[in-house]
């Protein structure tokens, strides 16, 4: 099976695009009834109060998603800020036919993947990566100070920490695919649009991510 690694694709476009254009007027009408779409339409009209509402509604999810994807708190905050500035800059490109959260997570994913490809991060990866694993071009995650052994028991909080650690160890595109499909509930078509690959490639990414997570977390599941 052909691998789809992070280094095999060009720089992700951070200018948002409409992921799934729908020409059906009924779909447009349904979307207009969506409060998120209505909020974004106000932002498109230049309403900065609406933009503040948009930020307060979506930034916690975007920040959490970015933190899991880039694996760094400070970078996740930078990405979150960049995402919302970009949303405002290109607000006219949003089309009400698509879900607003899908549009936002697509932009966030592209920013995060670009962040993971930055040269300074590659340098750090080279210093940390002692196994020469091509499957993990971003390198292993930093040591988790809260790591617990199976013998300590697996409370829900501990399990969450272990899962976060296991997710951070995945290759970036596998990580993005599993996060987009599980956390935001994007279908494979939308994930493919966000990652700039085919739907089949997304299925392969999710499958490999699932297998890796099961292997890593076998003592906790």
């Amino acid at each position, binding site marked *: 099976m052909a691998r789809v690694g992070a280094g095999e694709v060009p720089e992700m476009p951070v200018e948002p695009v409409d992921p799934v254009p729908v020409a059906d007027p009924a779909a447009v009408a349904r979307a207009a009834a969506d409060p998120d779409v209505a909020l974004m339409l106000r932002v498109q009209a*230049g309403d*900065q109060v609406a*933009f*503040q509402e948009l*930020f*307060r509604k979506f*930034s*916690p*999810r975007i*920040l*959490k*998603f970015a*933190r899991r994807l880039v694996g760094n708190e400070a970078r996740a*905050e930078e990405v*979150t*800020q960049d995402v*919302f*500035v970009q949303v*405002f*800059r290109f607000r006219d490109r949003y089309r009400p036919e698509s879900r607003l959260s899908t549009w936002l997570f697509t932009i966030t994913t592209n920013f995060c993947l670009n962040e993971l490809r930055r040269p300074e991060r590659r340098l750090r990866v080279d210093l940390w990566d002692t196994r020469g694993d091509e499957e993990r071009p971003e390198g292993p995650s930093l040591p988790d100070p809260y790591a617990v052994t199976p013998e300590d028991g697996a409370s*829900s909080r501990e*399990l*969450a920490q272990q*899962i*976060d650690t296991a997710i951070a160890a995945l290759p970036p595109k596998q990580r993005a695919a*599993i996060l987009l*499909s*599980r*956390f935001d509930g994007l*279908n*494979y078509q939308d994930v493919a649009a966000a990652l700039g690959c085919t739907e089949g490639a997304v*299925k392969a990414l*999710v*499958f490999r991510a*699932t297998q890796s*997570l*099961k292997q890593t*977390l*076998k003592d*906790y*599941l």
Partner: protein
Amino acid sequence: MVEALEATLSPRRRRALDDHLVRCASCRAELAATERLFGALDALPMEAPVPVRLEQATLRSVRLLAAEEEERRVARAQRFPWFRLAVPALAAAATVAVALVATLTSGPEPQRTGSGPAATAAKPGPARVAKAAPRSTLEPSARVIAAAKPSPHEARPEVASAAPSGLPVELTQAPDLLFALPMLHNLDKLEHFEKIQTTVLDDDIGQPPGDADSNG
């Protein structure tokens, strides 16, 4: 199995998987592990508290961006009226230029049988000027002078009426001025010649009178 858990498997493949799971304990365990993993993933917190400074920094950036957009919009709006005024002006100028060129470049019409005043009036201006000063027999500068000073036998009112209104009198009377490019080249030569002459004169003037006498 992932597709089965996400309910994206087609009914036919779902039935095939179910049939296989009945017979295969390993795949049943695999499916159960995948289901537990997805349950754990779905139970993870999906939101993180956003620091106040992040919100403030983002909103400040957006306010600056909005201000820049507004400045650009105002600048465009200020440029646009000038453009709107310039369009009719350019259109009018282009119309005058086209009319002028059409008038000046139209060649002599075929010889008409009539030779009365009406036929003479219908002829365009350049043909009449060329008749007054044939190009083949005169130097360019002389042709310009001849064109600028036509013979008194020319029918001036008729030429003026054929040209568009609003033109300078010199152009109306001698349209060849616009196209006498050799004249421009000769003007360069004339200027060069005048400079030489001027230099000589300056040297003569700058020379002390005594020197001139001593040389002589």
